[in-house]
């Protein structure tokens, strides 16, 4: 099979008349952390939303091109969206736990997918919380409301919730921008651990974060991929002047 988690070919995306992604050709490797950086409005979040077809929820959106995932073109109309979204886990900028208990948040996905066995559910919840480095902090309070957790804990809970349905890849959209530096550092450590098991695609405004956590980085600008290279190379010696201007803060 292919070595890439996503193979994106000639992807174009419009919101109404506005073209937000222009001929994106990108291969997201099946291992390690890939970061996407770029100024606001460059299309990086829209790009992420096409990868699990959340873009379907924007009525004026239409697209062309192909995105191969598991050998299937997930841009086809007849794709199984529920299946796709469980295989492509997503973590958002604002931690968004359900107003339920910690346990029920993590068990939500497996239950929807038909898991009713209490013992199995316990196992999945424990493993997911352990993988999200939250278990030790919540193991005695699994019945407590998720919303009683701190922001950083809530974000790790959301990661655990995504892991509970055994995704093939994790997408993270600015996962730390609502968190303080300590919580951010915990999530970054977690990303470093998780990448052993899951490829991760992270969108971030924080270039230092991209530089810290990722192995390769794509720079988006006005809906185009300007440069895609190893992070080490992109941040010390970028090929494109526009990348250089952006990462050195001399943009515009």
């Amino acid at each position, binding site marked *: 099979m292919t070595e890439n988690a996503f193979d994106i070919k000639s992807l174009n995306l419009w919101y109404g008349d506005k073209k937000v992604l222009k001929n994106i050709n990108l291969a997201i490797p099946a291992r390690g952390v890939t970061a996407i950086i770029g100024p606001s409005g460059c299309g990086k979040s829209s790009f992420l939303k096409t990868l699990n077809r959340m873009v379907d929820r924007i009525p004026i959106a239409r697209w062309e091109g192909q995105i191969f995932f598991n050998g299937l073109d997930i841009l086809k109309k007849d794709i199984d969206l529920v299946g796709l979204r469980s295989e492509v886990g997503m973590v958002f900028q604002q931690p968004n736990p359900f107003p339920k208990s910690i346990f029920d948040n993590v068990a939500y996905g497996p239950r929807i997918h038909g898991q009713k066995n209490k013992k199995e559910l316990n196992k999945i919840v424990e493993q997911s919380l352990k993988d999200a480095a939250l278990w030790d902090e919540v193991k005695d309070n699994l019945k407590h409301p998720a919303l009683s957790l701190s922001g950083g804990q809530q974000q790790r809970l959301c990661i655990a919730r995504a892991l509970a349905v055994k995704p093939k890849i994790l997408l993270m959209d600015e996962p730390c921008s609502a968190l303080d530096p300590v919580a951010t550092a915990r999530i970054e450590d977690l990303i470093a651990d998780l990448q052993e098991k899951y490829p991760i695609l992270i969108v971030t405004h924080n270039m230092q974060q991209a530089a810290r956590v990722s192995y390769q980085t794509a720079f988006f600008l006005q809906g185009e991929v300007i440069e895609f290279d190893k992070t080490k190379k992109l941040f010390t*010696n970028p090929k494109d002047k526009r990348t250089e201007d952006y*990462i050195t803060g001399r943009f515009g």
Partner: protein
Amino acid sequence: MRQTFEHELEELFQDILYMGGLVKKTIQKAVNSLKKHDLEGAQEVIDKDDIIDDLELKIEEKCMSLIARQQPMAKDLRRIGTALKMITDLERIADHSTDIARITLRIGDEPHIKPLVDIPRLAEIAQEMVNKALEAFVQEDVNLAYEVCNLDDDVDQLNNQIFRELLTYMLEDTKNIKQATQLLFVSSSLERIGDHATNLGEWLIYMVTGKRKELND
């Protein structure tokens, strides 16, 4: 954009140029003092070394602070990395000038075993190399940096020539050995200065192109 950062980078460059200017002068002063038995001049070179050492520390501190506060990336990062490496080479050049000055004091008023011609010539080339390296740094001129490196071949050649010549003086009369050995040290200090100037050129090439080139052989 990023005006404070730009301003601090500019200041950093000015500091390096100032340090470079001082270092360059020590070469000339050290060799002139040697040639003219000018013990006071030699002492001055030795005394000035502290100023250069302090400058190195000051610039180093500025670099570290810029990295910590401004998180430089890409060329900015290479600029600051280059600055950090350059000041080490500059400081070492000044140390070699100091070594030459110490030898001048050691020789004192004792007449030279031969008129000094090649050593001042060697010093001139070494100084030109440092000069060109600093100019290349100001202009971000990679070609000029390569010129610095080419001059290093002349330095090596002249150094060998001086070695052979001093050897004949030593063979001629064993009483020459003491001073001839000292002069050999001077020549080899100047040769090392050439190597450090070559390093400066290499760093400049890295700063501009992002690629490390090994030009010392």
